[in-house]
């Protein structure tokens, strides 16, 4: 922000960065969409690469993946699709039940546990110009009720059709407990990054996830570092450790996370 006033400049430069160890990446997101059976679930396995590597991320095939509901001992085996994804069609989601993930890869066993977390419905979606960061640009607003008697954490995923990536927000009810929570999504008018503000006709997918406190701690940091890593006014960047433990060799831990959430999915088209 100060940049505007102080003639500062930003340019892309070449930087030599160190290369860390290659690790397994587990993206195991058991997301139960409200109003569906939630029986189709997917786990993605890949590996990390050097930071400036431009080749496609290497996918992991040949691993064995299963999830156990520790409350019911039901077991769900995920089938290797040979493209880095592992699928099941028989998953049974239960709010408040605890699930355990087990991945066996290269003779090492990774495990993680999560309790499935519920989410409130979205009360209302609106569009406005006056709100947001810029009172001349369109933004969309979502409203949902935060339950008062517990600590709640949310992840919101916005994705505009045609974009390369989604945009994420993490929300804790620490200062908002028991209130109707308002979140907004506005796009800058930034030619350098090719970002254009919303126009009537643009469609945005909205996913609101109810997440656990531990996943909130993970994703909050991931989001902060993704959007402002290296910025002098953000906290010092650090390795983000997920919840997947290598039971065989704990130094060879995996990146990524095993989450179990309830999600509200909807979309909005600007008028």
């Amino acid at each position, binding site marked *: 922000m100060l940049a505007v006033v102080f003639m500062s400049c930003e340019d892309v430069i070449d930087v030599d960065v160190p290369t860390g160890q290659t690790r397994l990446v587990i993206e195991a997101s058991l997301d139960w969409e409200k109003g569906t059976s939630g029986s189709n679930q997917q786990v993605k396995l890949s590996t990390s690469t*050097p930071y400036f590597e431009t080749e496609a991320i290497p996918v992991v095939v040949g691993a064995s993946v299963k999830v156990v509901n520790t409350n019911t001992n039901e077991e769900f085996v995920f089938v290797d699709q040979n493209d880095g994804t592992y699928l099941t069609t028989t998953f049974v989601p239960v709010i408040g039940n605890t699930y355990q993930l087990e991945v066996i890869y290269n003779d090492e066993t990774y495990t993680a546990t999560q309790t499935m977390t519920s989410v409130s419905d979205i009360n209302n979606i609106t569009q406005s110009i006056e709100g947001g960061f810029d009172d001349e640009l369109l933004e969309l607003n979502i409203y949902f009720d935060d339950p008062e008697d517990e600590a709640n954490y949310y992840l919101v995923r916005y994705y505009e059709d045609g974009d390369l990536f989604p945009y994420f927000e993490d929300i804790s009810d620490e200062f908002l407990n028991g209130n109707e929570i308002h979140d907004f999504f506005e796009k800058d008018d930034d030619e350098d990054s090719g970002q254009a503000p919303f126009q009537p006709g643009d469609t945005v997918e909205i996913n609101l996830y109810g997440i656990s406190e531990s996943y909130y701690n993970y994703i909050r940091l991931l989001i902060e570092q993704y959007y402002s890593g290296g910025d002098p006014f953000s906290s010092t960047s650090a390795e983000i450790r997920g919840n997947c433990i290598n039971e065989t060799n704990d130094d060879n831990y995996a*990146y990524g996370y095993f989450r179990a959430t309830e999600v509200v999915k909807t979309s909005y088209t600007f008028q």
Partner: protein
Amino acid sequence: MKHLFVGFCLLFSAVVLAQEKYSIRGTIKDITNGETLLGASVFLKGTSNGAITNEYGFFSLTAPKGTYTLIISYMGYETLTKDINLDADQTLNFELKEFATSLNEVIIVAEESEQVNLKKPQMSVSKLNASTIKQMPAVLGEIDVVKSIQMLPGVTNNGEGSAGFNVRGGAVDQNLVLLDEAIIYNTSHFFGFFSVFNADAIKDIKLYKGDIPAKFGGRVSSVLDVRQKDGNSKNFNLTGGIGLISSRLAAEGPLFKEKGSFLIAGRTSYAHLFMKGIEDLKDDKISFYDLNLKTNYDINKNNRVYLSGYFGRDVFNLSKIIENTYGNATANLRWNHIFNDKLFSNLSLIYSKYDYQIVLDFIELDWIADIKNYNLKYDLKYYLSDKVKLEFGASGISYKLNPGEVRPTSETSPVNYLKLDQKRAFEGGLYVSAEHQITDKLTAQYGLRYSAFSRLGGQSMTNYINNQPVVYNDQLGIYERGEVASETYFGKSERIKNYDNFEPRLGLSYQLNDVSSIKASYTKSSQYIHLLSNTSSVTPLDVWTPSGQYIKPQRSTQYAFGYYKNFNDNAYSLEVETYYKTVDNRIDYIDGSDLIGNNTIETEILNGEARAYGLEVLLRKNKGDFTGWLAYTLSKSEQRTYGGQAGGPGINGGHWYNTPYDRTHDISLTGIYKLNDKWSFSSNFVFQTGRPVTYPNGQYNYEGLSVATFSNRNEDRLPAYHRIDISATYTPNRKPDNRWKGEWVFGIYNLYNRKNAASITFNQNNQTGLNEASRISIFGLIPSVTYNFKF
């Protein structure tokens, strides 16, 4: 306490008055404006007996009965001599005349270059006066005290646009910054681009990088002692300047028939006026202002009172989205009382406050926080004999901290009202210190400070299971918040935690010959309040927190050794110092710590230690048309943070790692050349090793994003920082009877337009999807022009 009294008795009884001695006391002032001169020397010719004026221009010296020639000198002033017959105690006041009365007079006060100061055991001190600072090139011509001290060895900061300064590898909060004795909690305007000190209101600044005198306490790295001008007691005059960023105006003059004087100085920026004209920025406002006030009154020859104050404010308003204001306010009422020829005293009642407010309109939230303190302080100086001078005193500081209060700004705001626990604390200090000339060549300064700190009740404290506010999660390899066991409420009359420390200070100087000396010092000091900041640059929103159950006082020990030499008839001076410093109980933050609105900071920190060592070389040319200095520092600053009670390996596996203010090499060159009466030129060159940062060491795909993984904390470095600045000062001719004196200062900052990285951020390009590194550089080549005047 008992130790102190014993110490006192020993010191007093050690001195036996063997022969008839008399004292001379008095005040040394500037002849033109009546400003008292601090650090001026009074010397008995042909002896090693002399005295230096204190902060109030007062001196006292004692010598055996006889006739003497007094030499009164001060750098940049004509030396005065006076023959006296010392057969009774006497009061002699002197007024010295500046060499030239030109506005752009260059004076580098090289305290050590004067004869008496080779002997003075005080080391690791740097002094700059306002006129030198005004000569140095500055960004946008904005004269900056904090930036100019960074041209001295051992002083750096975190780059352009970062607040505060780092001394000998210490953190920003480890500097005690005093403006007329009042604590300044944030030294910056515009988030660190400029400093809060208005050069027109300042007499001089002194930075103690080590060997901190016993009268100062409360911080472990340094003391920056900034003194405001008293105000001209002879004539009314105005000084001021018009620059690109701000304008300054100071008025000063005599009061009560020259028995008093006043100074009132203001400075305000006006960038926001230009911004109004720019369509995109018309709703933004960035501005700051300062107000300095000082007045004093001579009640009689033994009593003088001073009142000084400062008020400064920053306003930062971005399109009504974020509104941020912050600033310091201080006041100090002082009473100088001279008991007799040998005993000088000063009593001060001081108030300081720093507060900030941030309004985030888009989430309808208003956040305020502040820290304030009252400080009562009594300092005495006893000129015991020609060989021994004693300083002793006591102080008490009462702190009240409001770490944060959140208010919803409307009825529909989703935010709940929240007030973090108010914190109260008391810090007391007692000290005694002696400057003792042991032999003609050996002088010692030894002292002891006793500090005591109480965290006072009036709040609840959280207790954790196994007394672990932070717990290492062995399986996940991360530090997590501990589980709350219970809460204990402490009443206002209760004390939550007490600490106390003895802080010995010792300095020795040994004069090798007429032009060179060696000095050594040992300093222990303690710090009871800490600035919480988990970012690489401190921000105005960082919160101070007192020590308590979970945060222990920082304690430092510093050893320093130095060699000093004047040569070519004192035209040049060389100072070489090396130091080794350790700090116990230096906290660091766990990965992913969240300090904002946090009532239980203890769940985010681990206790560790820090160490720093280095070599500093300062070569100065003090006389002639060309003056200036070369400063070089070779240093290392590291910290180590174990898991301790929380378990686990700690940060970076419990190994030593660089602090964010580690700079291997730091070179500063300042040159000032006076061509003739009209033109003078100055230039700076700065080179610094890049700031330690943490770079990504890999990436992985998660939720469709390329997420960076990181190496160990502060394991990498930004590219080296360097730049050259130049400035030229033009003083037009004027008629001798014209009181108006003006000068133009033209400057170019960053002459070769080096894009110094303030930071490097790592992002995924949202058009290509590829990772890239972006360098943010703040000041490119910046020309400036400033007009200064005096009337």
